[in-house]
């Protein structure tokens, strides 16, 4: 694939050329699906191929998880486009499914608080939530502001959380989550637990000062922290070359002494291999790991109800992206390496299922998601006065809007 033709075009400008910007962009583009591996970040071939130990059942479950994320999003997008009563919004994850799935497949997703592994999410949380094992119907209800939703309608998409499965939650902010995750890892290490803390963060998080604090302290204290950087090339509407001087952000992590890998985020097996290595290291007290997954989101930065195809808040065209449109050819090129297709092909090639069974599984997942939406969107709306609850453990705060 010729990615040179599809990289975001920039007008010549007067930015000081401290290093060759053009050369950088070429490199950045090449890292797209092909995966470039820096010496410091560790070569792919060094990653133990842990996926070969996975049972067929586990491999099928990972395929189902990828499909659940994909069909949850496609169904939600349809709701936004077609259902005038639907109110939820989302920062879509479609295209990145293999990252959440591959990482969470290597974690403990059940058990008491002192056993389950913790996953911190970003403001693009639905894939992480599903991969960690949240109740999908309750998540659907939450995203549509229903009182029986996962968080009682208080949080909605950017704030979903389910501590019961170790899903520490979404975070609407860029910056804090990795540092906080390092605090969880600190506590796990201090109490002698073999739990690990994982944080999913986008390429936009690199520029925040929190990155330094997280890496520095994780390395200093040998924390069982796994920082999964999902480099989907864009933070909101800006290409990551505008916020990061590295081609591989993993290089920055390795400078702190953090074990760092760069993986193809479209391939669930490669992600799993890197995640399993990181988890094994963390559980054995060997300290933090950093995984940069090269990936891509198919939809806009976010989608909202009342969307119209090709117009504001819809999909494929983003009017807020005034300075940096994502080139359609770039999107198409990434869709050629679709994580669903890749996962299906692996299962078929490995003789886990045949093509017909793989299609059947997809139909089963579609039905499961359709049921989740049917249940979620039939749930009761919130009671206004409940807005005064949950400020503290007990009681309500006084209403002040009446004077």
């Amino acid at each position, binding site marked *: 694939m010729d990615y040179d033709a599809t990289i975001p075009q920039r007008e010549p400008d007067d930015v000081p050329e401290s290093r060759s910007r053009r050369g950088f962009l070429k490199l950045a583009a090449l890292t797209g699906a092909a995966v470039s591996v820096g010496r410091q970040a560790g070569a792919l071939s060094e990653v133990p191929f842990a996926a070969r130990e996975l049972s067929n059942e586990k491999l099928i479950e990972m395929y189902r998880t990828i499909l659940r994320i994909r069909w949850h999003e496609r169904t939600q997008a349809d709701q936004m486009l077609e259902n005038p009563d639907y109110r939820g919004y989302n920062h879509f994850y479609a295209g990145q499914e293999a990252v959440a799935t591959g990482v969470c497949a290597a974690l403990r997703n059940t058990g008491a608080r002192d056993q389950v592994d913790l996953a911190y999410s970003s403001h693009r949380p639905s894939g992480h939530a599903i991969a960690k094992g949240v109740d999908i119907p309750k998540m659907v209800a939450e995203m549509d502001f229903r009182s029986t939703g996962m968080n009682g309608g208080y949080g909605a998409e950017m704030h979903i959380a389910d501590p019961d499965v170790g899903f520490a939650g979404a975070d609407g902010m860029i910056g804090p989550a990795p540092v906080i995750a390092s605090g969880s890892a600190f506590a796990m290490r201090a109490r002698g637990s073999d739990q690990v803390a994982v944080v999913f963060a986008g390429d936009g*998080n690199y520029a925040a000062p929190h990155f330094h604090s997280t890496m520095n302290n994780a390395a200093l204290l040998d924390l069982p922290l796994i920082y999964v950087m999902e480099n989907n090339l864009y933070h909101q509407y800006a290409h990551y070359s505008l*916020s990061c001087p590295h081609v591989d952000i993993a290089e920055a992590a390795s400078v702190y002494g953090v074990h760092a890998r760069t993986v193809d985020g479209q391939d669930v097996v490669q992600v799993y291999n890197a995640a399993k290595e990181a988890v094994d290291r963390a559980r054995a007290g060997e300290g933090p790991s950093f995984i940069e997954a090269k990936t891509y989101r198919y939809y806009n930065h976010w989608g909202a109800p009342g969307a119209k195809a090709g117009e504001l808040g819809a999909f494929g065209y983003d009017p807020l992206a005034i300075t940096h449109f994502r080139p359609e050819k770039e999107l198409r090129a990434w869709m050629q390496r679709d994580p669903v297709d890749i996962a299906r092909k692996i299962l078929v090639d490995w003789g886990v299922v045949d093509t017909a069974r793989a299609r059947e599984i997809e139909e089963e997942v579609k039905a499961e998601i359709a049921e989740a939406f049917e249940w979620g969107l039939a749930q009761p709306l919130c009671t*206004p006065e409940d807005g005064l609850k949950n400020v503290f453990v007990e009681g309500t*705060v006084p209403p002040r*809007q009446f004077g």
Partner: protein
Amino acid sequence: MAMKSWMYSVLEAVQHEMREDPAMTWIFELTPPVASNPGKPVINLETEFGRKRVVNTGIDENWMASAVLGAGLAGSRSATYIPYQGSCMPFQVIQNVAAKLRHKTGGRAEMPVVWIIEMTGQTPGFAQQHSCYEEDSYYMHIPGVRTVIPSTPFDAKGLMHAALRSRDPVVYLYPAGLRTLTEEVPDDPFEVPLDKAAVRREGGDLTIVSSGAGMPGVLEAAETLAAEGIAADVIDLRALTEMDTETIVNSVSKTKRLLTVDQSYYTLCPGAEVIARSVENVEGVKVKRVAFPDAPPPASPEMFLWMRPGPENVAEAARALV
């Protein structure tokens, strides 16, 4: 003179100042400094002034806030646009560095800098972390930094000119819910003072004081009240630091009834300061305070819209006061 949107009015001021001063810089993240308006040329600071002066940076509000301060100390006027949820990230550099610099250098530090800080959260559903219900209270508490909050496109432009020309650092709060407002705004530069409230309506039966995102609802309520025979003085604070005590006290001395309206949390809302200054200066004032309850704004529109003070809440409180 033309009908102009909020953002066009603001960027028109910035464009003028950047043309006048080739050293001035602008730092942004995510939100491009671009605005269009019917019948007017598109403003794009990034293409007009180039990326040496107009920088699209990473999501790093700490750098943005610190960098404009450093630019100011190096002798360049500088402004930055910090969108929505990033608004309290740069708090430390504004509160514990910029605010104290003039004082601690015995008046020697020069800081011709502006932090444009969005206040979001007026849209139901955004909720929680994408809602800024405390920032006016936080920033107005800081001495040494002027904090202003326009509520109209005209004031947005005039206050921007004044802020960029000021030798004091300015926190320029931008209630994003007002971005859809349009009004007649002059093409030529003009200043709105950084320390004067605006009297939006003169009545005499009671004084209603609000600011920023609270203003449209207050003006609507005042209209309703007028139809019922209750005439209100309506004051738009505009300047939170330094607050225009004189304008408030003049009105309250006349009406003896004061209603404050804020979209931010009840505790330490700007209205609390307005009430304190009024009762300190005027005998026998009856007061009421309408504000968002001391709870984070929830996602559910049912909860949120009930909690957010609307025009009907303002009118009802006003009726109870007169």
